[in-house]
């Protein structure tokens, strides 16, 4: 496209002027500078996080990656990220386990099953889930979900307690519990619209002749979805799930409100306790001193690297599948 416009520019301007007209492009320089600035901002985020993380890391008396306690403002400072990374990954993975099947179902429903006239509006309805601010989800999770889900958590613990993660030693789920499980449900609600939106776009890009061919061979609608719709959209959907994972890893306020402050590794997701990198920053920041703030920045750096990796993989996967299908950008 840019090539063709350049050609037009050259041909249509009278002789003598085109060179000057083309050379005088300060605007090109300005827009280029803006693009470079964006890259610089991304680089600056990494650089400043590293600079401000170093003081606390050099004071830390224990190994930053394996220590399971958090007292950076004590003397000597002792803190580590093990508990936080564990809680972050566990809650995000659990959230994906809950959200992915529903999100895929919603996307397939909107693209294939919903009445055509309503489909767009039903899609908007799901998008609305993404418009509710995370602090409102946190408030709702803390004041509605935690008390109302008590019975269900207790049921899970008593019925499926033989599965290690649902085990409930000391019977602590009989009272309302601010557990990783509740946090994961809130996270699942928040990542669902992200995954559903990408999956919907990817499913829409599938060549209709594939679907028609499947139906023409006598496939039922579900068989058409399974054999013609899902296989070509698989890479794009995986990309969408990765984006959802990135969102779940970085979610802060909702988790901070639901979980509160605690610093223990527990495999039992139904019991109270658990913490994530982001939630710990929000909850601990108010009382943190100089070393404490620097330590929080160090954990933020780890979160930044984690989400950057996940997002890079996700985007690359989506780009590849888009190139293959020649549509979605």
């Amino acid at each position, binding site marked *: 496209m840019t090539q063709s416009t350049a050609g037009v520019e050259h041909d249509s301007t009278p002789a003598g002027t085109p060179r000057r007209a083309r050379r005088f492009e300060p*605007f090109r320089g300005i827009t280029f500078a803006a693009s470079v600035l964006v890259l610089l901002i991304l680089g600056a985020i990494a650089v*400043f996080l590293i600079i401000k993380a170093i003081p606390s890391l050099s004071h830390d008396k224990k190994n930053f990656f394996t220590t399971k306690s958090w007292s950076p403002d004590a003397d000597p400072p002792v803190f580590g990220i093990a508990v936080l990374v564990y809680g972050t990954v566990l809650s995000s993975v659990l959230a994906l386990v809950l959200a992915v099947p529903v999100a895929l179902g919603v996307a397939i429903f909107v693209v294939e099953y919903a009445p055509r006239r309503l489909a767009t509006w039903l899609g908007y309805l799901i998008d609305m889930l993404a418009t509710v601010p995370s602090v*409102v989800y946190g408030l709702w999770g803390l004041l509605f979900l935690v008390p109302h889900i008590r019975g269900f958590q207790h049921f899970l613990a008593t019925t499926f307690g033989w599965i290690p993660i649902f085990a409930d030693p000391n019977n602590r789920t009989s009272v309302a519990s601010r557990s990783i499980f509740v946090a994961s449900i809130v996270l699942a609600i928040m990542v669902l619209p992200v995954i559903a939106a990408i999956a919907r776009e990817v499913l829409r890009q599938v060549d209709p002749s594939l679907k028609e061919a499947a139906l023409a061979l006598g496939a039922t609608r579900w068989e058409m979805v399974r054999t013609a719709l899902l296989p070509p959209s698989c890479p794009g959907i995986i990309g969408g799930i990765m984006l959802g994972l990135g969102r779940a890893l970085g979610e802060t306020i909702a988790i901070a409100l639901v979980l509160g402050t605690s610093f223990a590794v527990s495999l039992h997701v139904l019991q109270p306790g658990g913490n994530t990198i982001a939630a710990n920053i*929000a909850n601990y920041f108010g009382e943190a001193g100089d070393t404490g703030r620097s330590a929080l920045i160090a954990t933020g750096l780890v*979160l930044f690297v984690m989400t950057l990796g996940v997002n890079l993989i996700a985007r690359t996967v989506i780009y590849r599948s888009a190139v293959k299908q020649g549509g979605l950008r």
Partner: protein
Amino acid sequence: MSAASAMAGPGAAATSQVWKLRGRRAIVNRLMTGAMYLAFLVAVIPLALVIWYTVGKGLTRFSWSFLTHSMAGVGPNDVTGGIYHAITGTVEQLLIAAAISVPLGLLVAIYLNEYGAKGFSTVVRLLVDVMTGIPSIVAGLFVLAFWVLGLHEGYSGFAGSMALSILMLPVVTRSSEEMLRLVPNSLREAGYALGIPKWRVIISVILPAARTGITTGIMLAVARVTGETAPLLLTAAGTLFVNNNPFHGQQEALPLYVFSSAAGGTPADVNRAWSAALTLILMVVLLYVIARLLTRRDATRR
């Protein structure tokens, strides 16, 4: 036979065909149809619950006085107090964030769509997309490390705006780029044919043509960051008092108010949190409705 009728129409014809199928395939098909409807229902239930609960709880304290009073001199158990200081803070922070990210995002979008060299554009585009995925708390930590602690500027509404603008920038850039791409090439060529320099064509032909779409994208980006709490917690830091100077001193914001009230925990605090959450949702919905109306008006005009 079944193939012919299934081809004819994926709607009524296909459904009636399904009923004639027998055995395992028909059962699986009906189960999966049910599962799809169920998935949609499961996704809508939390939305309904959140909105129903927020509206129900939020209306108890929602009043004119709640909107026009700050928290100055209000104790945790007093049933007075309001969100005036939070609303002014949020509006100022959003306007400044938009003032930073909109021009910058537009320039990048123009570069990507009108000038960009292929390789460099791909890199920029990928990194802008990756930026969309930066957790909001990391944006807050960056401004904290760079501005608040690094340059010793201290907490302020402006610091919060910078964090918000980092979150807005990729959204503005990508949506504006999509809109610029939709401008037909014939418009560009008509401009060049008249001998107008490229920068002039961009400013007076292409941007006006894409104006509505770009505005919609900006509104959506603003709506997206309106509810951001985490970055403001680390940069604007919140206060109980009215502070109309975004460049000096801690400033309250609506999402921060919800967070600190919810964490406060007394019944009066919790009631205020619900009412502020309701105000926040109304603000976000208002921005979305404006954005959708703009798109719609544009669609009918064409």
